[in-house]
Structure formats: C-alpha cells, structure tokens
C-alpha cells in the first residue's frame, strides 16, 4: 500500500464536507434515540405519550431517522473521507458534487421530517401502500436517495481519476471497498426509486387512482435487503482495513478482502423475497430460489470472520503470545478505537445466526413480523454496525477537526461501548424471547383483549424498557463525546489509521477492478431471480388499491 500512504491527512476542504454529513448523522442519532426511548417506555405499559403524540408517529421518526438518515449520512461521509485519505484529495468538481449531494439529502430529510411531524406520513420507514402518505414525504425520501447518488458520483469520479493516474495498479483497498459499496447502493436504490417515482408519487398526487401493492412491496424489498449490506460493508471496511492498523497488526489478505466485497455485491441484491416469504402472489419455488441466493452471502461472511480473527491471532503471536487463546490478552482492550468496534464484531455472531433463521424458507413463519426480527436487526445494525461507526468517529472526527481523542474521552468511549452492550443484551435478548412467544413488532402496548398469551409478553416488554433506557444513556454519552471531539477537544493530530498488508509482495489481481464483469454478473443474477416473478405479478395483478390514511 505504498502509494496509499503517501498522503496522510484528509484535506481540510474534504474534511468540512465529511463533517457536514456527520453533523446531520449525529442529530439523527439524538432524535431517533429519543424516539426509541419513548417506544420502549410506551410498550412497557407503564407510560403514555403526552400531547396526543401517536406511538406510530414516533415509530416512523425512529425508523426514518436512524435507518435511513443516520446511516446514509454517516456512510457517505465516511466513504468520502476514506477515498480522500487513500486516493488523494477530491478535485474541486468532485467536492462540489459531494456538496450538492449533501444539500439534496438534507433538504429531503427536512421535507420528510416536517411531514412526519405534521402527522401526514405515519406510514413507518417502509411506507407500505395502500397506506398513503403526503406526496412531500415520498418526495423527501427521493431527495435523500438522489442526493446519495451525487455523493456516490463523487466517490466513483475520484476512483476513476486514481485509476487513470495508476494504470495496471490495484486501487487502494479502502477506496476499492467504498466503490463496491457505492455501486451496490446505486443498483439497489433503483428499486425503491422506481416504486416511489412511478407508483407512489403519482398516486399520492392523485394523478392515478390505484396502486399495485405487491409490485410496490417487491420493489421495496429488492432495495431493502441490500440496504442492510450497505450499512454493513462500511463496518467491514473498518474491520478489514483499519482495525489491523489500530492494533498494530497487518491486513491478513488484501486479495481475499476484495474477493469478499465482490461476493457481497453479487449476492446482496437478488434476494429480496426472503422478506416476503409469507405473502401471497409469489410462487414458492421463486421464493426458494432467492432463499438459496440469500445464503450465499454466508461465504464472504465466513471469509470475513476468518480474516479478522487471523489478523488478531497473528498480531498476538507476533508479540510472543502462547497457547490457543493467549493472543487475546495482547489485544489493545484499553483503546476504544479497537474495543468498541470489537463489541460490534462479537454481536455479529448471534446476529448472523438469527439472520439464518429469518431467511430460512420455513422457519421464517415462526418469527415473521414478530419482535424477534426487531431484536435481530438491533444486533446487526444497532450494535455491530453502529458501534463500529462510533469506533470510527472516535478518531475520524478529531482527525477532520484537527483535534485529539484524549485519555478521558477514550475512557468515556469504552464506558459507552460497554453500556451499549449491556443495554442491548437486555433489549435485544428480551425481543428475541418475546418474539418466539408470538409478540408482534411495530405494535403499541396492547393487552389484546386480556388474552393470556399476550400477558406472558409483558415482563419481556419491561425488560426491553430497561435495556432501551440504558441504551439511551449510552446515546447521550456518545453525543457528548461527539460534541467534544468536534468542538472542544484539544488541538492536535489524530491519525487516520490505514492498514498495511501482511504479504507486500502479493498484488491483488486486476480482475477485481473489472466493473463491467462484476456489474454484468450482478445484473444477470438480478434478472434471473426477478424477471419471471415480476412478469407473473404484473400479468396476474388484481385491480390495485386506492389510498388509505388510517392514522
């Protein structure tokens, strides 16, 4: 990675663009975290929302602001920083494109937020038709997506400029990874953009009367599953290419890291039916095919797990550790930049196992739309991914603002991570358990007419409230750390760690940079998995649905 390390700091102008993204992301964390706290409190049955605020309105805020806004802003900011650091400062044109993206996304966020606050869009972040939100809500979400394409364009342009300047050389690993994730995001968002622009927007404006509900859901879930990999891959960027540097070790294998990212690109998209297993109108054979494709992401996941622990073990052994697990003691547990993302990695083990259950053709029926699913993605997104994002912020924010992570803040950051782990164990654990007993997700507190089964869920809901409250404390700590690092920490130089490869001699094969090939295979797989079911769906479509506003 000799070339990649020639420039050690992100340019201040790029830094401002990245920080703009982060400000919005952390405001979203504050708002969404508060919404989450209100939800667990309401659902414990011991608390009611004041001022006529609706539970589902708060739930919509939580989903939109954390699932779409926080993630998209943080990821795009981080990727721009990673590209600027490893492939050189953005050109003025690239940076302007990035700013256009940022403002489009921000405008879209404000539009959607206003509609939610006015109670014109209490349709949750999945906005399933025929519940019909205000047109401005759909338009706002469109702006967020289109804005993210501009950010993506800046990343891709910076990458192609680097490629032109370095013919025959594999691109810097972090840049390569950012490009893979950006391409996956663009291919995936075409689905949600299609349903919003061609179905929901005209319908909410009254230009058409009816909407094809199943088609809209299918387009949404074509996007909805790669969405989770769009969240996850930036965490993997940190685990693969940054954590090794932080602990003082080496990247286990540059080529295998690239291979696993390419496999995620191929197998993340043609799989949306695993979110639609229990619905009518889709032939079960096609559902099964997509289930099989879904499980293929297990291969790059196993590669990732191997690489990470191989890095940790080789590092420990290089420091003279002995025995099967002696290397564990050598890891820098006192460094929040390592230990907080490490908690995230650990949570990915039960999270992955839960995911296998969710996607398996038949077992899905046991857990579909129960609060088990909520427990599941609070381990994946709300622990593995978000703790890694926090771990990145601890050094990236001061790097960009010309400050330093102090010892005191580092300590606070570790407390924050541990608090998160404790809170999430309670909350997600109770959600998994209650879900197996049948408790639904996305539902306000209810005794279900005094049903004895529903009474069994209440103790778990109280445990969720306890866990959720602890998590809220952790969020406050995180916001305090962020504000410190952005505005108050002492001036200084905080390093942007970029890992080096164990075996310098081994060059990554250039075939990984052959985007025509990888995008070609991606498109073929998508066409294979979706063409016939979509034709069936459209040919046999019922009359379509008028809009409803039932909140």
């Amino acid at each position: 990675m000799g070339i990649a390390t020639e420039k050690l700091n992100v340019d201040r102008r790029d830094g401002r663009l990245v920080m703009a993204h982060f400000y919005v992301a952390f405001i979203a964390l504050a708002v969404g975290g508060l919404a989450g706290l209100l939800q667990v409190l309401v659902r414990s049955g011991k608390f009611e929302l004041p001022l006529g605020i609706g539970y589902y309105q708060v739930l919509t805020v939580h989903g939109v602001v954390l699932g779409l806004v926080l993630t998209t802003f943080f990821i795009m900011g981080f990727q721009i920083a990673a590209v600027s650091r490893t492939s050189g400062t953005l050109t003025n044109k690239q940076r302007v494109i990035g700013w256009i993206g940022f403002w489009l996304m921000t405008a879209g966020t404000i539009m959607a937020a206003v509609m939610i606050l006015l109670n014109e869009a209490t349709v949750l972040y999945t906005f399933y038709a025929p519940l019909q939100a205000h047109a401005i809500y759909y338009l706002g979400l469109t702006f967020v997506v289109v804005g993210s394409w501009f950010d993506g364009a800046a990343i891709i342009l910076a990458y192609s400029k680097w490629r032109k300047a370095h013919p025959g050389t594999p691109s810097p690993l972090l840049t390569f990874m950012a490009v893979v994730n950006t391409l996956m995001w663009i291919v995936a968002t075409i689905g949600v953009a299609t349903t919003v622009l061609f179905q929901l927007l005209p319908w909410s404006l009254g230009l058409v009367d009816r909407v094809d509900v199943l088609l809209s859901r299918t387009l949404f879930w074509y996007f909805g599953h790669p969405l989770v990999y769009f969240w996850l891959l930036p965490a993997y960027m940190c685990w693969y290419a940054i954590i090794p540097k932080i602990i003082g070790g080496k990247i286990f294998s540059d080529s295998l890291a690239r291979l696993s990212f390419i496999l995620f690109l191929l197998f993340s998209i043609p799989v949306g039916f695993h979110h639609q297993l229990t619905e009518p109108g889709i032939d079960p054979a096609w559902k099964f095919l997509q289930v099989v494709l879904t499980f293929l992401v297990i291969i790059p996941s196993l590669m990732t797990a191997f690489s990470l622990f191989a890095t940790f073990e080789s590092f420990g052994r290089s420091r003279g550790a002995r025995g099967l697990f002696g290397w564990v003691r050598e890891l820098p547990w006192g460094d929040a930049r390592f230990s907080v993302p490490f908690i995230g990695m650990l949570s990915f083990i039960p999270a992955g196992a839960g995911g296998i259950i969710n996607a398996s053709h038949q077992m899905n029926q046991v857990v579909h739309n129960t609060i088990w699913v909520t427990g599941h993605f609070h381990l994946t997104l709300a622990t593995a991914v978000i703790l890694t994002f926090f771990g990145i912020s601890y050094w990236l924010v001061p790097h960009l603002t010309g400050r330093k992570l102090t010892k005191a803040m580092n300590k606070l950051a570790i407390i924050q991570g541990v608090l998160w782990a404790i809170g999430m164990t309670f909350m997600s654990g109770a959600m998994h358990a209650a879900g197996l007993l049948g408790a639904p997700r996305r539902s306000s507190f209810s005794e279900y007419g005094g049903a004895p089964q529903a009474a069994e869920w209440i103790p778990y809901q109280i445990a969720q409230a306890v866990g959720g409250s602890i998590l809220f404390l952790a969020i406050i700590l995180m916001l305090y750390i962020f504000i410190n690092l952005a505005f108050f920490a002492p001036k200084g130089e905080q390093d942007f760690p970029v890992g080096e490869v164990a075996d310098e001699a081994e060059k990554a094969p250039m075939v990984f940079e052959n985007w025509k090939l990888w995008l070609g295979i991606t498109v073929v797989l998508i066409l294979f998995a979706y063409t016939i079911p979509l034709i069936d769906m459209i040919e046999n479509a019922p009359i379509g649905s008028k809009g409803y506003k039932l909140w």
Partner: protein
Amino acid sequence: MHMHKFEKIWLIFGVGALLVFLSVLGVSAFYLGNQPPSCLATIDQEKVDTLPPFNEPGLKKVEGKDWDYELIFVAAAFAYTPGEVEVPLGAKVKVIATTKDVIHGFQVAGTNINMMLEPGYISEYVTTFDKAGEYLILCNEYCGMGHHMMTSKIEVVE
C-alpha cells in the same frame, strides 16, 4: 491469489454445512410440501363481502378435500371477522383469509400460522390444531392507529 490452508479448511467446512442446510430446506419444501403460505389467487378487495367464500366467514366442514374444515377470515381496519371461533381438536383446517382495505398480518400466536394479507390477494395455510386451548390471533403488520387492537381468537375444543 493465495489462500491460507486453514482458511480453505474453514471454508470447505462452512460451505459443506451450508449445502446440507439448504438441502434440508429444499427437501422439506418440495418433497414434504412445507412451503410458506404462497396462494396465487386474486380477488376484488372492494367486493370481498359478496364473494364466496368470504361472504360467509367462520368455520365450515368440507367433504372430499385433503382437509376437514375451511376457516374463513376477513380482515379490515381494525378487526377480523369472525371475532372468535371454535375449532375441534385434531381437525385439519385450511385457513383462508383476505383483507378489504390495507395490508394486515394474520398471526396465530404460538403456532406456525403467520401470513400477510394483501389487498387483492387471498392467503391460505393448511394446518392441524392438535393442542386444545385458546389461541390469540393478531395483526402483525402495521395498518394504522388501531393496529394493536386488531385481534380475534381461536378456541380449540375437545
């Protein structure tokens, strides 16, 4: 591209386990017939009340089919019809349900009956009620203000 020997072993083991797992799912689905609810029939959701079988919701004995009873449910914001139903213990039942308005869920807590009801489509699932008791039916897909009040009840009686 070089791959460490241990990584090869790890991946061969992992991929092998994956193949076994997928084969189990496949045999269960295509040989034993354990498919998720995937009825392909459509209906005009605005005329549900007048169309059979939904014009007569509730439990009906049927002859000459693979199941003994058909249990018909109609969902609409925010209630199911019937609001309560008795099913004889051990009966093999085809649950047939649809919605008159938005998307609803149809979940019988503590069983494998869990399906989406979408406007314009009929959802079906065949099951045997082999444990007596009271089962809560609830909506598990957000459908509006009264979503969490949307329930019904199956009483499995001897």
